[in-house]
Structures are given as structure tokens and as C-alpha cells.
């Protein structure tokens, strides 16, 4: 009898590992993103962001179902590749993670989301912005950053409230991206009681826009919005100037590039605006303090989306706290009710799993570069 007790005690100590973790239950959170390859710096950045969130929760101490828990991050490399992403997702599921922060890119997040859905494990992406990701009807797919559609909404608000534009013409390139962006803008304008003065279309191989621009010119617009990419956006802006159109030029992140500045050259002016999903760190409520803590902990500055990754991990932890359980089946419904002040802003989700308050940054062209507007 005595021998059995000793054995049990020994076994218990062996299982528990370190002395600090004696009484703790370990909850594993997965992280998936490119840790090798050309965008590896962004993947590592997000991994650190998630790590910091778990460290903070462990330091504070979280108790779920009367049991003190310790969070552990299990990071895996999806190489930003759709096929590798599904392998990684399966590996994380098999390892028994309770939730996933990731993936980093839309191309990887979309195929991986199906595997998490089948396993019933929630995943929160810090940086994949494709609207398609959250429109697959999955219960387990969430994101903390604005999607591409929310850019259209943000631009509509800016055009009407800040630029005081009333007569807005809209052009898109009929791609899923361009059309989605333009439709979101038009919807948002309609909610403000504004109908676009022109709605024209082109394609993603076109170079001549003089016919549609001439038509729009006759409607005397204050602003022209283009949903599409820089390779069309630049010649379009040039042709606006050639036709003597003085309207402001608005666009989404497809045009918010250094390539646009190069291609449009002298046609760029302070009248050119664009949006990008995700707000820059110095505009985040707790951005500065976060960057300091992050740099101190990992000896590297924040690259880009680490704050979003931090908030994504915290969204999972908050839902677990609400459910008082780390079991995916129990805390998944609670993700819908999560609401807290994160580093990047308010974190709460709509019925699709998209961020309610998805941050969109607005840029204005100024002195040779895109300048973020407050």
C-alpha cells in the first residue's frame, strides 16, 4: 500500500514537470504563420505578440473551473503556403491545442480554417484580411483586423465627414477585391443618404480610362473612388489630370503602395487618399507602451502586426475566462460575447467573426510618400 502511494507521488511529480507548475493545468495555444521564407519576419513578429499575451496571462494567473492554468504557445511554420498551412493546422489539432492564433496570410488562413472548423477549434487571425475568410459559414473562424470590406466603409465615412464630399463617383475593376471594396463604399454611402453620381467599371488589364472618366466628369464629382490595384490606379489618376478633372482621388490598399507613387509620378498630389487595414502602432491606444514591453522582452522592435496578434491571443483567453473552461466546445460560443480594450482598440466580433471595430488607417499623399492621417 505504502509503495503504491510513493509511486503515485513520483508519477505526479514527473508529469507536472517544473516545480512552479506543480498544481497548474497546461493549456496549449497554437500559433501558425510563416517562420521561414520572405515574410518570415512578419510571422515571427506575430508569434512574439501571441507569446507576450500568454506570458502576461500566466504572470497574472488565470483560474478556469477552479483549476489554475498555465498557457503554453505551440508555434508552427506554415511558410505562408496554402498546402503547408493545412498540414500545420492538422498537426496543431493533433497536438491538442485549445485554440489557434493565426494564420498570418489570407492564402494560408482560408484552407487552414476548414481543418479547425472540422476539429471545432477556434482560430483568430491577426492579419489575414480577405473577406472570404469569414464568409465560409464557419463557427470557429475569427479575426481581429479589419477586412477589405471595412476599408470601403471607412473611406465612405472619411469622404463624407472629413472631405465633405457629396458628389462621389465610383469605379471598380470587376475583380472580387475591387468590386467588394467599391460595393462596400457604395453601401455605406447609401446609409448616409448619398447616391454615387457615377458608377463605372473597367477591368484589371485596362490602361485607357478616358471614356469612363469623361462620363464621370460630366457629373461634376467632388471625389472619385477606385476599387482596384495600383497598375490601373496610376494611369487612371494621370488621365484624370489630362481630362482636367479636379476631383479628389480615393482608393483602398491595392493603391496604397510605393509602386503607385512611382507609376503615377507627377500626378500624385495631396488630393490622393488611400486606406489600409490595420492601424499603425503609434496611433493605437496602448501602442507605445506595448512596443516598449515587446522590445524589452524579445530584443527586437515590433515589425507590424504583433499588437494584433497579442489581441488575438487575448480574445481566446477572454472567451475561456467567460466560459470558465479551456475546452473549445465550451468557450467557442463565448467568443461572440468577448468585449475588451486591447492594444489595437476595442476587441469584439460580429456574427461572421469579423472585428466590429476593425481599425482602418487612412493615408494621404504628401511630400513623396503616404502619410497616415490622425
Amino acid at each position, binding site marked *: 500500500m505504502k509503495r503504491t502511494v510513493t509511486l503515485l507521488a513520483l508519477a505526479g511529480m514527473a508529469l507536472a514537470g517544473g516545480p512552479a507548475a506543480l498544481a497548474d493545468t497546461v493549456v496549449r495555444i497554437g500559433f501558425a504563420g510563416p517562420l521561414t521564407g520572405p515574410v518570415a519576419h512578419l510571422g515571427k513578429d506575430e508569434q512574439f505578440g501571441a507569446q507576450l499575451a500568454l506570458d502576461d496571462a500566466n504572470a497574472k494567473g488565470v483560474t478556469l473551473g477552479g483549476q489554475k492554468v498555465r498557457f503554453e504557445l505551440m508555434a508552427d511554420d506554415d511558410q505562408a503556403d496554402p498546402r503547408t498551412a493545412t498540414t500545420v493546422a492538422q498537426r496543431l489539432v493533433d497536438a491538442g491545442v485549445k485554440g489557434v492564433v493565426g494564420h498570418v496570410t489570407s492564402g494560408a488562413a482560408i484552407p487552414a480554417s476548414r481543418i479547425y472548423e472540422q476539429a471545432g477549434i477556434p482560430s483568430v487571425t491577426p492579419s489575414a484580411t480577405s473577406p472570404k475568410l469569414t464568409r465560409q459559414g464557419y463557427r470557429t473562424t475569427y479575426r481581429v483586423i479589419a477586412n477589405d470590406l471595412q476599408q470601403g466603409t471607412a473611406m465612405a465615412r472619411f469622404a463624407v465627414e472629413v472631405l465633405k464630399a457629396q458628389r462621389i463617383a465610383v469605379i471598380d475593376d470587376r475583380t472580387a477585391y475591387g468590386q467588394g471594396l467599391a460595393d462596400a463604399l457604395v453601401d455605406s454611402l447609401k446609409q448616409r443618404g448619398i447616391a454615387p453620381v457615377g458608377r463605372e467599371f473597367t477591368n484589371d488589364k485596362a490602361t485607357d480610362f478616358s*471614356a469612363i472618366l469623361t462620363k464621370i466628369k460630366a457629373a461634376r464629382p467632388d471625389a472619385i473612388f477606385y476599387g482596384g490595384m495600383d497598375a490601373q490606379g496610376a494611369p487612371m489618376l494621370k488621365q484624370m489630370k489630362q481630362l482636367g478633372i479636379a476631383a479628389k482621388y480615393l482608393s483602398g490598399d491595392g493603391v496604397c503602395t510605393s509602386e503607385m507613387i*512611382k*507609376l503615377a509620378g507627377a500626378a500624385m498630389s495631396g488630393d490622393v487618399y488611400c486606406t489600409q487595414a490595420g492601424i499603425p502602432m503609434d496611433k493605437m491606444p496602448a501602442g507605445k507602451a506595448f512596443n516598449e514591453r515587446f522590445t524589452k522582452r524579445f530584443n527586437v522592435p515590433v515589425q507590424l502586426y504583433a499588437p494584433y496578434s497579442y489581441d488575438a491571443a487575448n480574445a481566446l483567453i477572454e472567451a475561456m475566462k467567460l466560459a470558465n473552461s479551456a475546452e473549445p466546445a465550451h468557450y467557442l460560443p463565448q467568443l461572440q460575447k468577448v468585449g475588451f480594450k486591447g492594444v489595437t482598440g476595442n476587441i469584439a466580433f460580429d456574427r461572421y467573426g469579423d472585428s466590429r471595430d476593425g481599425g482602418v488607417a487612412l493615408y494621404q499623399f504628401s511630400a513623396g510618400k503616404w502619410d497616415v492621417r490622425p
Partner: protein
Amino acid sequence: METLLQQTVNGLVVGSVYALIALGYTMVYGILGLINFAHGDVLMVGALVALEAIRLIQLHAPELGLVPTLLAGLAVAVVVCMILGYTIERTAYRRLRNAPRLAPLITAIGVSFLLQTLAMIVWGRNYHTFPQLVSTTPVEPIAGVFITPVQIVILVVSAVLMIGLVLLVNKTRLGRAMRATAENHRVASLMGVDTNKIIAATFVIGSALAAVAGVMYSSNYGIAHYAMGFMPGLKAFTAAVLGGIGNLAGAMLGGIVLGLVESIGAGYIEDMSFGFLNSSYQDIFAFLILGIVLIFRPTGLLGERVADRA
């Protein structure tokens, strides 16, 4: 009214570039019965070579003025494209001259892919900024119509080249030989015409026109890219068919008509269809006109002569 005039000017500018490219298609078709699908890509090579030449000139001889730099770049592009046109004819098409008609057609598509891929390897996938050496700032608007100096240059150069080509074909010895070869190259060769030389000359002239069109196209839009030849090539081919392929005047008319139809179509399709159609149908509109013309005139607007060829 102002808008209609502006759309007409837009259409004329676009249409005259189409016309210039269409001439290359139609000349080759008239003589060989071959649709040279690589023609649009010769235009692309012309634009990118000119871009490279202009960059070099600006680097090593910046004191050269804007217009001389452009002309020098253009000259380099024209020479390179002439050599390219000759090489394509000599290596890809000549051996297939007596093969079934499908073989040279497929070869033409192959040459098109080859040129695009080579250009992608040399110049990369990125869009390049084409230096706009002729001003793109609109001149003082006339009756509310805006036109830029580069567009005026395009209209004038296209007109001059088209007239020049017509004179060449109708008034010179080379032109007579070309017409003879087009009519019947076996008989022409029996009459002492070196048909191989004439066919090569046709490709060389067509490629030179494509190079000019490419440089003008890029100067107008300020952009150059390895796949830029595809769309204008396709449109110019349509223009050639619309005007009556094989007929020089038809290519010019077809180009101008297509430019105008596109421009005015895109501008008014919504009003004309009572809001049922919009500008995403602008290409359909152009092809609808083509279809209607071909139903009533199967050989195109001016295409009597090709009736026995088709």
C-alpha cells in the same frame, strides 16, 4: 455636347493607335493570309526597348533635350523591332509557308508567348514607368475639350504614317511588288519578283509601325509592361477585321471606328440601354458592332478584295 466632343477626341486618339497596329495585321494577312498574333508583342518589345534606350541616354547624355531623347529611343526601338520582325518571319513563318493554314496560326500564338516570356525574364513582372518626354499637361481647352500635346502628336504621327504607307504601297516599286505578291505570289515570283524579300519587307515595315505605336502608347499612358501588347493587339486585330482584313484603308477605318465605338459606347451605353447595361459591357458593345457589321458585310467595311481569300 461638350462630353460628346470629348468622347470623340478620346476615341480618335485610341482609335488612331489601333489603326496603326491594325495596319501590321492587315499587311501580313493581305500577303500571306496569316494572322500574325505576335504583332501585339512586337509593340510591347518596341515600348520596352525604347524605355531602356531612353534610360541609357538620360544616364549618359542628360544634356540631350527631351524630344531628341525620345526620337533616339524611338529609333532604337524601330530598328530592334525591324530586326525582330525579320527574324520572326525568317525562323518561324517561312518554313511553314506551304503548310496547312492552322500550323502558322498556332506558331504565331507560340511566338507571342515566347516574346512575352522573354520580356518577362528581361524586364521582370513589374510595371515600369515610361518617361513622358512629350508633355501630358492638357493644352488650353477648346470648346471645353481637353487634349494633351502627346495626344496631338499621336494623331499627327498616325496620320502621317498611314498616308506614307498608302503612298508606299501604291506609288513605289516595292509597293507594286507587294501588291503583286498579295494577289498571287507564285505568279509574282514567275514575273521576277523576289517574293521572299517582299514578304520579309512586309514584316519589317509592320514591325516598325508596331514599334512606333508602342512608344506612342507608352508615352500616352506612362506605363510599360511585359504583357502590355495583348490588349491593344487584340483590339487592333478586331479593328482589322472590322475594316476588312487585308485592306489597308479598311484597317485605318476599322481602327478609328473601333476607338470611337468604344469611347462613345462606354460613355452612353447606360443612357442608351435605359440603365440596363453599364460600362462593364463596353467591350461587348464593341464586339456587338463587329458582329452586326460582319452579318451585313461579311468581309468587313471595306473588304471586297478578300472575299475570294476567306
